[in-house]
């Protein structure tokens, strides 16, 4: 961590239980991110109550100063094949707020490369938040398990770029020359047949997006199911070799599971993908279950 404005502070460990073993060189340090409280390595993330609109798609908002940052150690996913053979980042900084209607998260990590265009053997940066679907459960960390579903919010750099309408072949190869493409000569409906995954509604393939965050439920690796009703929103910046991603999701989440009520605690986990290091799918950096505490509204 050598980015501007971030300095390591004295060793402080808050609530070490539940921290992921094997995370490299991060235990017991604090970093200062911006005016506000220093980030501490912790397994407890508090979502401060704030009676205001949440900056759910604005990672640069000053409102995030009201949240207490924590450092979340990351390790390579090596539970299910295929493994991430080697970790290339070791920590994530997380903040949380809620306003009684939405849960907002600000997630930051160092990444020298901005990878937001998928290509042949080229992968994107991404971050995900995992919550149990049902109150009072701690599903397997491996994206839940049979009968123990999880609710996942995944932000992808690719989808962020989609929002600006700048994806696809013309962006990957700016000097590409096409002869005649189906969409040049056919109606939109007929041309869709030449993008099969888009034609069948695969959410990965749809570039006309309204949000850079996808809500899914899963009961184990390989069981990702896209929620029919997508309510999460998000936004991101990549400056100075650092991603800052804001995500917000309604506390009421009928399609995913039980509501995230104020004054309750939930397990929460994170995953980060570094596109430049060929991270994708199960090849990711993960954090074990932490505790998310939503402050009461009183």
């Amino acid at each position: 961590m050598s980015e501007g404005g971030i300095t390591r502070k004295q060793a402080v460990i808050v609530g070490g239980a539940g921290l992921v073993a094997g995370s490299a060189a991060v235990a017991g340090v604090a970093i200062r991110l911006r005016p506000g409280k220093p980030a501490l390595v912790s397994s407890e993330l508090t979502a401060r109550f704030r009676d205001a609109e949440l900056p759910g798609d604005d990672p640069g908002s000053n409102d995030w100063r009201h949240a207490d940052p924590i450092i979340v150690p990351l390790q390579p996913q090596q539970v299910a094949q295929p493994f991430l053979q080697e970790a290339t980042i070791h920590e994530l900084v997380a903040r949380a707020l809620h306003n009684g209607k939405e849960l907002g998260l600000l997630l930051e990590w160092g990444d020298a490369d901005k990878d937001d265009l998928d290509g042949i053997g080229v992968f994107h940066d991404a971050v995900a938040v995992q919550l149990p679907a049902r109150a009072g459960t701690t599903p397997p960390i491996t994206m839940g398990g049979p009968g123990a579903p999880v609710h996942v919010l995944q932000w992808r750099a690719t989808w962020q770029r989609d929002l600006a309408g700048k994806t696809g072949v013309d962006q990957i190869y700016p000097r590409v020359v096409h002869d005649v493409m189906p969409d040049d000569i056919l109606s939109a409906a007929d041309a869709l047949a030449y993008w099969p995954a888009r034609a069948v509604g695969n959410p990965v393939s749809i570039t006309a997006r309204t949000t850079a965050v996808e809500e899914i439920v899963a009961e184990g690796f390989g069981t990702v199911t896209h929620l029919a009703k997508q309510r999460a929103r998000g936004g991101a910046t990549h400056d100075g070799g650092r991603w800052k991603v804001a995500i917000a999701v309604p506390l009421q989440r009928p399609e995913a599971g039980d509501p995230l009520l104020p004054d309750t605690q939930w397990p929460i986990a994170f995953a980060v993908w570094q596109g430049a290091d060929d991270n994708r799918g199960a090849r990711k950096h993960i954090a074990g279950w932490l505790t998310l505490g939503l402050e009461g509204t009183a």
Partner: protein
Amino acid sequence: MAKVRNWQLGRAMDYPYDAPRPKKQFCMVMDTNKCIACQSCTIACKSTWTWGKGQEYMLWNNIETKPFGFYPTGWDVNVLDLLGQQGWDGDTYTGTTVFEAAPVGEKVLGWKPDEADWNHPNLGEDEPTGTAGETTYIPDTPHANMWMYYLQRICNHCTYPACVAACPRQAIYKRPEDGIVLVDQTRCRGYQECLTACPYKKTMFNLETRVSEKCIGCYPKLEQGLQTQCTTSCIGKLRLTNYVSTPENADPRKPADFLIHIRKLALPLYPQLGLEPNVYYIPPVHVPPEYLEQMFGPGVPGAIETYQNAKDDPELLGLLMLFGATERVISTFDVADGVARGYDDAGQEIVAVPLKEPTFVRPLEFATELKGEPVTGFRHNT
């Protein structure tokens, strides 16, 4: 890991899943000796299936010159290098497969092609090499030792596909009705694990839809009893779309079974990798056998001998003449009275080809050129 029987290896092998065989197994037989690399098959495939935006570089079917042609670059030599030197004991493979050699944390031993590896579909085209020794047909010429040949490539619709094994979402599946391997376009999330795992590099990433796609064995045609686009467009008539049984169930009336199991003329591509691929090749007769055995396994010498003696084997000769003779899938065939006949599933005759075409000798008096008159026509020697 499950134990599965791979007849091409002559032994059981480890595979990540217990993979039951399909009811029927799609296959293709290629006679490499007849190919001129005109790429009619490539264009037929491209113009049928992959002319959408995002599919520009995709060639589900391609023809490459061996030994220097590859698409993507180095697809076969890279995986052979990863696997290291392996061996056969007769018809039994004593080495390890890409599944058995998988590193910790991986389902398959594979490699990820770079974007640049897909830039050169015609790499090495028509480039010969000079180690043919005495196998050349043209001895005592300056180029007597030179050889090259064309390899026709589609997805092998393997019995034990590496793409299926590697997909973390089970988004790739093998159809139980005909063994065709498909990517479920609703499930794929674009992780490209299949691109790394498939040693034949026949899954490809769509740059617009951001998921994998691959050869679909022209299943909409197959479901109507028709052979694939690459087969029916082949001007060399070197392809046969068919179904193959396991050796113990081989039926000599069925074309692929006859060629693969009875005559043992058509051989799998890199069987040692362990996928039990289902495109079978009649090996080129002019290429050093050591090279061919690496590519097609230990059956090469026998296959070449059989092919060179085909003129004395009317049944085989007749079947080879049914290649490219009909768009319909030939279920069974026979050769009798100098005529090869193909039949559909119901036993109805769908094609008949004489082993020898009747010839007509034009009387000399019709040879206008001999009379000093303008030439009005000539007999095409077909």
